[in-house]
């Protein structure tokens, strides 16, 4: 029995030694061994008197010349496909691990930041966001958001929306699609504590510019600093903080919290006359030009 087993092992070794890729060699060897066992079982079933040793010897004979089979198997089984497969498995495994670690770390950092913000805002919408929403919605019925401490320093300013922005055409510039989505022209009456001395009433167009881009290529917030403007009466507006408090027309751009690929900017255009029927955002910088005309409607729909 021991000699038979050795002969069988030698036969299998010889028949598979031409296969250079180890895992393939092992697989083919076990397949041939199973085939050999089947043949042996067949002999014993057909010839019940045949001894197990003889059945095994006959089965081995029927399998053929080990050297010849070995040569043929070696020719068929090229090793590079096997090596490539192994390499692809390892590469996939390592990349998956790296991706899980990095995104896990990023996720934890984002969670941490979110928790800090939640804690700082005490679970409420930040006051700044409430103010932006108030101006951009242009709702004449909505009360101006106040903070608890602010009731003591009430400035006495009244805010009234007098014209409305309800969406514009979408323009394309570079990789981005830009659209003014909403807003209102506000009339402010009363003395401002922020800008004392500036004549009342004052007018400011508050509008939301939505920019849609590509993943990882959001519009740089500083690009919005180069938006200037013109109204239907021919007045021009420069994008600069230097106009603040002077009574001169100017635009201020500020990035708001966006969603997904959509960025939101709040554009505050000061000293737009109430008679203006439209306002145009102009951009001509760095070889790129675009313009969006924003109709200022007298009715809110």
């Amino acid at each position, binding site marked *: 029995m021991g000699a038979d087993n050795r002969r069988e092992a030698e036969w299998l070794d010889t028949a598979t030694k031409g296969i250079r890729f180890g895992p393939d060699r092992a697989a083919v060897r076990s397949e041939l061994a199973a085939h050999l066992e089947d043949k042996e079982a067949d002999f014993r079933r057909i010839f019940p008197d045949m001894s197990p040793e003889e059945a095994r010897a006959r089965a081995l004979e029927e399998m053929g010349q080990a050297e010849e089979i070995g040569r043929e198997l070696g020719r068929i089984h090229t090793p590079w496909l096997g090596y*490539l497969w192994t390499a*692809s498995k390892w590469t996939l495994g390592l*990349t998956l691990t790296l991706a899980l670690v990095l*995104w896990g770390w990023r996720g934890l950092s984002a969670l941490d930041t979110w928790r800090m913000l939640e804690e700082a805002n005490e679970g409420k919408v930040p006051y700044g966001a409430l103010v932006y929403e108030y101006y951009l919605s242009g709702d004449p019925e909505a009360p101006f958001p106040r903070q608890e401490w602010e009731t003591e320093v009430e400035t006495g300013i009244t805010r009234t929306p007098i014209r409305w922005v309800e969406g514009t055409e979408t323009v394309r510039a570079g990789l981005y699609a830009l659209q003014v989505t909403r807003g209102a022209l506000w009339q402010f009456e009363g003395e401002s504590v922020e800008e004392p001395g500036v004549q009342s009433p004052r007018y400011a167009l508050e509008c939301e510019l939505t920019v849609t881009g590509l*993943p990882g290529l959001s*519009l740089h917030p500083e690009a919005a600093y180069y938006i200037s403007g013109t109204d239907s009466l021919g007045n021009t507006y420069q994008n600069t*903080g230097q106009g603040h408090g002077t009574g001169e027309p100017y635009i201020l*751009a500020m990035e708001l919290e966006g969603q997904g690929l959509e960025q939101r900017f709040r554009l505050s255009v000061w000293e737009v006359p109430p008679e203006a029927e439209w306002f145009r955002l102009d951009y001509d910088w*760095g070889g790129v030009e675009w313009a969006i005309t924003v109709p200022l409607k007298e009715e809110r729909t």
Partner: protein
Amino acid sequence: MREKQGWSLPRLGRKGKILRNLALTLVLVGLVWGALGCPLPPALAFRRLELRYLREPSQIVAQVEQNGDPFVVGFTSEEVVLGDLEGGALSFWNWPEEGTGLMVAAGLRNAYVPTTWLLSMDAPEKAVSARLELELSAWMTRIGFDGELLVLALPTALDGDYWQESWTYSVEGERLPCGEFLFRIDAQDQTPWQDAPRNGVGEQMALAQLSWESLYTWAEPGGEHNPEFLALATFYDQTGAEVGQARLSPLENTIQGG
């Protein structure tokens, strides 16, 4: 009774598995790249920044490193664009109204970031070599817990003794293929400020301590004790004859965004 057929993925051969693994790896590589902040080589990162600033691509003329952080300079017909790739921001310099100008082709410099770069803007066509001379003069005072620490400061705001010190520094420019000259100012071999001898701060230390911005910030209009700073590049032709000069004046040349 018919056996219920369940849906299963098709069995793939070895080639199919390799292709599947490669496709999955590519997707994951994209995710890893994204998690790392989508890093790109400097020139491509500069192009991406230009796209994000809604700008047409400029002509890249120089790439430098300051403390390991890459900076790229691009020229357009309107202005000169400086890309701070680590900081993810562009800044802009006006072309000189006439003659040649000098710009800082890197970020802020201080004791911890001792290297900086200056770049000529519109260097003379005939120039084949250039030399940069820095002259620095600042008022010194002695402050600190033990009275030993020397700093550069405006003495008008401080009591006690003060005195004036001057330093000079010069460096050869490297001619770039576009014809501009790049000057590397390196204060790596400065005397550590803790070891600086009393009344004897080395020029390298001074160069490291003072950034252009701080010099201008410290300067008071009409002040008696303002620091003085001159960065002057001189350009030479093949015969060694002078063909032009350029001075650095950052605050006048930079374009303030918005």
